């Protein structure tokens, strides 16, 4: 435990600046969306949304009410930009945590100490989870506090449900990225593999919404399990989806630990 704590403290010191920048950026974008909401909430957004081609609406969420505060937030932020930023954070952090140290050669120095390889993976992963939780909270607090001021309506239970779903979804992305980082010796390869999985997953999600045949394989896409509007709007939990996300994380983390335990370092 001392080893993990030491790694955790050091990683926090090394990452605190970038973490604060990420958190401030995410919170600022929440405030930005809140700020523009009053000026457009009375516009004929729903009619505009209905006039869009059906395929486009299907791809981005046909069930979303764009004229409602939570629908607007989902389409403008939680459904598009937010996942993009948090996927970039998850992949980038996971890849740098192991692949970066191997690539820079500092992993050899670290493993010259009486530190277990699994502690290295778990220490880095634990920090990732804490940082992820902090970023989600930094995004959602302005939404909860700012909605009444901006004249929008959002339930605290819906925000909490969205927070949990987002945490499990991005944790799954970070987990398979950690596995990818344990697999490869360079950060660039680890990032490439993780980003490729995310892009293929996203493409499959879009195609599955447009094509009946491909929809049979929709469950293979990670984005199939990410539905921010459902959680934010009605606070209804899809426990099966959350279980799948948790299973992906646990499986990926276990695979990362096992692989990292048995691989050669610095060859």
């Amino acid at each position: 435990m001392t080893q993990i704590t030491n790694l955790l403290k050091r990683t926090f010191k090394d990452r605190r600046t970038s973490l604060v920048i990420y958190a401030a950026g995410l919170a600022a974008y929440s405030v930005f969306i809140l700020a523009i909401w009053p000026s457009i909430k009375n516009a004929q957004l729903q009619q505009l949304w209905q006039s869009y081609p059906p395929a486009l609406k299907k791809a981005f969420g046909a069930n979303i009410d764009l004229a409602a505060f939570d629908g607007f937030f989902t389409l403008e932020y939680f459904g598009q930009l937010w996942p993009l930023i948090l996927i970039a954070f998850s992949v980038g952090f996971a890849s740098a945590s192991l692949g970066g140290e191997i690539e820079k050669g500092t992993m050899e120095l670290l493993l010259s100490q009486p530190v277990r390889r699994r502690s290295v993976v778990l220490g880095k992963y634990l920090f990732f989870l804490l940082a992820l939780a902090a970023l989600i909270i930094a995004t959602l607090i302005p939404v909860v506090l700012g909605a009444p001021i901006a004249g929008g309506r959002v339930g605290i239970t819906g925000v909490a449900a969205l927070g949990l779903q987002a945490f499990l979804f991005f944790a799954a992305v970070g987990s398979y990225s950690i596995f990818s980082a344990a697999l490869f010796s360079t950060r660039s390869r680890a990032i490439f593999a993780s980003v490729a999985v995310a892009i293929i997953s996203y493409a499959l999600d879009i195609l599955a919404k447009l094509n009946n045949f491909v929809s049979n394989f929709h469950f293979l896409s990670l984005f199939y399990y990410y539905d921010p509007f459902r959680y934010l709007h009605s606070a209804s939990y899809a426990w099966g989806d959350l279980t799948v996300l948790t299973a992906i994380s646990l499986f990926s983390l276990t695979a990362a630990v096992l692989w990292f335990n048995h691989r050669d370092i610095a060859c």
Partner: protein
Amino acid sequence: MPSILYRGTNLQSSTAENSAAVIACRSLTKYYGPQPGISDLDLSVAAGEIFGFLGPNGAGKTTTIRLLMGMLRPTSGLAAILGYDAWKKSTEIKRHIGHIPGDVRLYEHMRVGELLDYIDGFRASTGRLRAELLERLELAAHKNVKSLSRGNRQKVAIVLAVMHDPDILILDEPTLGLDPLMQQAFYTILLELKQRGKTVFLSSHILSEVERVCDRVGIVKDGRLIEVQAIEALRQNKIRHMDVTFAKEVNFEELRRLPQVLEVQKHDNVLRITLRGDIDAIIKELARHRIVDLTFAQPSLEDFFLSFYGASRKNDTNNQSAKKNI
């Protein structure tokens, strides 16, 4: 005032421990794909011994050290430290090991003191030798790692390896980048540690370094251990060059007849004598003439390896040169 490196437990007091091999390799083999890194390595290092691992670049020294440090998994065979499998019990045995990697990479964004604190956090015992080592190696803890020269980075690596007073030191080219004064300081530290019974496994491609500090030497080439010798035997076996300047021209045919003399080259009043073994007879023969100057040139690693490969390699080289000339 005696150095604090002299204080503490003296491992040599335990004769039982001395008799056991602290480091042992049995048929240790590591392949990188089809390429052998090290093949069928058998060696053992006793407690309190400084063992030199000598070989040219790419011979397999770093691979062996990484196997001992549990960084690489052996393809076959076994590396053991303190009787434990170096791969399976890597974490446990590292509590007793200080290590300097061949290619020292440090956390660039930290200060030296911060880095030492961080590494200290993984050990149960604090680095009680840290302050003394920093002073003796003239290293400032407040400096940024990224601003350090190659030599200063090496000093940081030395402090990191020694500050916890480990029982075993596994050092890969430890004086790389150090200036001659700091090399001396490092050798002094090593010999102090030896006096306290610490075991040292030291890889090097510098013959004089190995001769100076080691008790025994393993010679490795092309991934194979060629020879293990006590340092005295190594001194006897190695080829040396003696340059003798005479007051006037001399007849050196008598010298050629001495069994220790391998070759004599003459340039005016200067003789370059290539010899192996005891020099007593040669000195006595030379003393019959008036000598102006006498020097021993340090043999190159190439010369040294010729001692073990005989003339075959030289002949190969000569043949290749001859072919090129044709």
